[in-house]
């Protein structure tokens, strides 16, 4: 198989329009005879399912949750970008395109990113029409805020629950189609393999998680929209159930996996509190609009704070090091996520961390509270307000903007962030890498598509804040429903695909064998035991900073752990019932393979770019050092049995509309 990205020719701004005009369509009467399976019902899968059904295709959706409304897109907080230029601050499609390419450290495709920027404005129109209650100004028009790595305000939001509101919008569009009988939802179902017939994706094997039964489902095309694989680190901001299984199963059946090492470590998460921790909680990047990040200037102050002898509020302004403002004066606290995360790690490694474990920095709202308080005092004509009045007025403004986030922080940490600075530390959040897709979002398996976080396409080596929601909905509402027609137009005479084909027998048999093996293994250690150990290897050696020695160790350690897993894992219960331990075991088995490929990819990329930081490749100031001459390509890995045998295919990246520069936020 060769990598054919099917990028349209012609001027950048007209490529998408031209492509839509050139591709084949399926007439409405024929759509009724075509079945499409959508796995995953978050923003990408939910919106794709709704639109495909609306166009007339017969859609089946699959999700492991009890309802599509619970997909982890729901947890996205801060907002969604769109080049609307409502603020008149110089935004445009080109600028959103430019920011995204630069933010991705020149490792994404120009064509895909331009299309994303182009359809972004439409997403907002669409969502408002569907009744998504975005934040508004007093004049009744939509409000915006700013996110990291950009110099304009283009982020639309619904308090700290933007992902929830957008997902419920996509869910409501799905519900409309379920009500019309055009979508058949299979909730509490997990896809465990892809079925390929004559080289084309023709169906899946799914397990009903309530009864444990294996089911066969056929279709003319299969869409994978199952999100990212951040849970390979065990601790991440992903949901407990988020997994790589669907993506990994199609990889093993021929879909190339691209740039697995590109992982986003988000700078503002609540620090780890102990060994019992099951997941990490994000504090939205939007907080960096108003919060200032700092650590003590003096090591002895940091030590005193860690020992509880000094409070952050006792430290005078001149004893604080606002290190992002110091190092990056033009972007300050709003540098992109990879830059902010590394800077936090650098300070903590140097001994300036502020919690018990030494792995936390402050995110402080006191300046913003006082600034807003003064503004409010003027607006309310309060003369000579006291400091307390100003603070009170300011706290109200901050509460209005970020109330739910502050409440969440207080519940978890048991400290009041209005009175004392929040403590934050980077955590695994998003994976830019994923299944390789062409411009039509088709994988290297004909008829198998990947959308949203599951694919690799738009964010290069680092994603900008508020762009994940944008990409999920762009893929699902506006891209995939068009491009899939080009492929399906050749299937109008195929007729229903039988699930009695030998290919279905074979796939089901293989799934059953694996499940039986896990249940009958009767080892001595739980699934979580292995998952935690894998996570520790990944975080220590394949995390925020990587080097050749560590990566080589990680590869051999993961391989050994995988062998131990298959010998020693203990899965209670049976196959024929609701069995969450068995579900976890299947997912961890796949993480144990992906983790190795992830490390292999990181080891081969002898440069630093975006979220991939190799200690050997950095500037004197500690910034990432790219090697465009040798690494300006997408690394697409082909499965060959063992992760270590994976074969590398390169898709070179060309920039015709943007000058490739060293990324600087100084």
């Amino acid at each position, binding site marked *: 198989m060769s990598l054919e990205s099917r990028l349209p020719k012609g001027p950048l701004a007209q490529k998408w329009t031209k492509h839509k005009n050139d591709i084949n369509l399926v007439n409405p009467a024929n759509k009724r005879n075509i079945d499409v399976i959508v796995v995953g019902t978050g923003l990408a899968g939910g919106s794709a399912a709704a639109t495909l059904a*609306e166009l007339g295709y017969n859609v089946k959706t699959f999700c492991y949750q009890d*309802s599509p409304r*619970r*997909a982890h897109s*729901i947890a996205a907080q801060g907002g969604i970008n769109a080049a609307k230029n409502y603020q008149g601050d110089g935004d445009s499609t080109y600028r959103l395109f430019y920011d995204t390419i630069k933010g991705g450290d020149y490792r994404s495709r120009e064509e895909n990113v331009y299309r994303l920027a182009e*359809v972004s404005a439409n997403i907002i129109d669409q969502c408002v029409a569907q009744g998504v209650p975005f934040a508004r100004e007093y004049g009744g028009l939509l409000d915006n805020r700013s996110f990291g790595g950009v110099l304009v305000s283009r982020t639309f939001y619904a308090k700290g629950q933007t992902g929830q509101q957008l997902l419920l919008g996509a869910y*409501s569009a799905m519900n409309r189609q379920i009500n019309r009988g055009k979508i058949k939802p299979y909730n509490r179902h997990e896809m465990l393999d892809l079925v390929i017939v004559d080289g084309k994706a023709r169906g899946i094997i799914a397990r009903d998680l309530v009864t444990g039964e294996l089911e066969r489902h056929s279709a003319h095309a299969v869409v994978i929209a199952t999100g990212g694989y951040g849970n390979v680190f065990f601790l991440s901001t992903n949901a407990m159930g988020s997994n790589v299984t669907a993506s990994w199963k199609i990889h093993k059946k021929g879909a190339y996996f691209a740039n697995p090492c590109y992982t986003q470590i988000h700078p503002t998460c609540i620090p780890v509190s102990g060994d*019992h921790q099951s*997941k990490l909680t994000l504090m939205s990047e939007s907080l960096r609009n108003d919060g200032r990040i700092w650590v003590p200037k003096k090591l002895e102050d940091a030590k005193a704070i860690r020992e509880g002898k000094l409070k952050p509020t006792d430290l005078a302004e001149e004893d604080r090091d606002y290190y992002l403002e110091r190092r990056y004066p033009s972007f300050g606290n709003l540098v992109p996520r990879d830059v902010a995360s590394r800077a936090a790690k650098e300070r903590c490694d140097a001994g300036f961390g502020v919690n018990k474990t030494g792995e936390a920095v402050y995110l402080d709202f006191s300046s913003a509270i006082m600034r807003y308080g003064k503004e409010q005092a003027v607006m309310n004509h309060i003369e000579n307000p006291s400091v307390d009045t100003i603070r009170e007025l300011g706290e109200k403004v901050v509460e209005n903007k970020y109330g739910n986030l502050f409440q*969440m922080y207080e519940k978890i940490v048991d400290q009041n962030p209005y009175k004392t600075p929040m403590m934050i530390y980077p955590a695994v959040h998003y994976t830019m890498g994923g299944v390789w897709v062409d411009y039509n979002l088709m994988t290297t398996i004909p008829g198998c598509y990947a959308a949203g976080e599951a694919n690799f396409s738009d964010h290069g080596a680092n994603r900008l804040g508020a762009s994940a929601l944008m990409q999920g909905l762009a893929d699902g509402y506006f891209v995939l429903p068009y491009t899939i027609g080009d492929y399906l137009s050749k299937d109008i005479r195929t007729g229903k695909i039988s699930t009695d084909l030998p290919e279905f027998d074979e796939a089901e048999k293989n799934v059953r064998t694996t499940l039986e093996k896990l249940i009958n293994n009767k080892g001595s250690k739980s699934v979580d035991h292995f998952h935690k150990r894998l996570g520790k290897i990944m975080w220590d050696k394949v995390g925020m900073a990587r080097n050749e020695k560590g990566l080589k160790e990680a590869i051999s350690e993961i391989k050994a752990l995988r062998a131990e897993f298959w010998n020693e894992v203990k899965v209670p219960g049976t196959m024929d019932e609701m069995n969450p331990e068995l579900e976890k075991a299947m997912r961890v088995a796949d993480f144990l393979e992906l983790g190795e490929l992830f490390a292999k990819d990181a080891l081969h990329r002898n440069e630093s770019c975006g979220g991939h930081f190799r200690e050997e490749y950095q500037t004197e100031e500690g910034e990432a050092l790219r090697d465009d001459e040798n690494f300006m390509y997408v690394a697409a890995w082909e499965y060959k049995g063992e992760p270590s045998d994976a074969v590398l295919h390169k898709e070179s990246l060309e920039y015709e509309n943007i000058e490739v520069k060293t990324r600087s936020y100084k």
Partner: protein
Amino acid sequence: MKLTLKIWRQKNAQAKGSMQTYAIDGVDGDMSFLEMLDVLNEQLIDKGEEPVVFDHDCREGICGSCSLQINGEPHGPDRLVTTCQLHMRKFNDGDTIVIEPFRAKAFPVIKDLMVDRSSFDRIQQAGGFISVNTSGNTIDANAIPINKHDADESFEAATCIGCGACVAACKNASAMLFTSAKVSQFALLPQGRVEATQRVLNMVEQMDKEGFGNCTNTGACEVECPKGISLENIARMNREYLTASLKG
């Protein structure tokens, strides 16, 4: 902390369930309630027993998966939190904690503490949407200004996470708070007014069909709601329903 847990165990929907007692030691105040159950489950697996099954996913209070009736209250003793955000510091050493599934005829038990809430999905499918196509060919998002107060109120109603605590708190197992939150979100927006009549009639009809009880205005739902969804939404839905019935 040392705790005694009394947990509802039920093999499957058909089986008869019962309360079982477990002792757990070394519980840390910084643990979430579900992390405490994770520890218990690891211990049960070690001993060769079956772990306790419960719904959970995002563990940050937004997906609405987690449920649990803890000491008789949905999501436990703390206010405005889901079980996953309830921390063990709210309990004391030596406490006995009773953990049951959400109880309602429309929420049948699947296994142990896990219940089937698909009735909520079916209420949404009956009318919880605006019938616009998702083609993107609509009017500009700023073409219709919306009063900030209405937009904010619509948002507040829309923050319902569909967990079912309102039903579990209600002595009648009524789903009025849940249904009215969606009816209100759309009723407050000009885009939603177009189909307001049919929406409220369809959603209420489905709600009744699912076997949820009637509302007798005790207000327990509002108290236990982890997202603070207001009772005003029920009043608004009643007005919408009355108007719609007169029109219909």
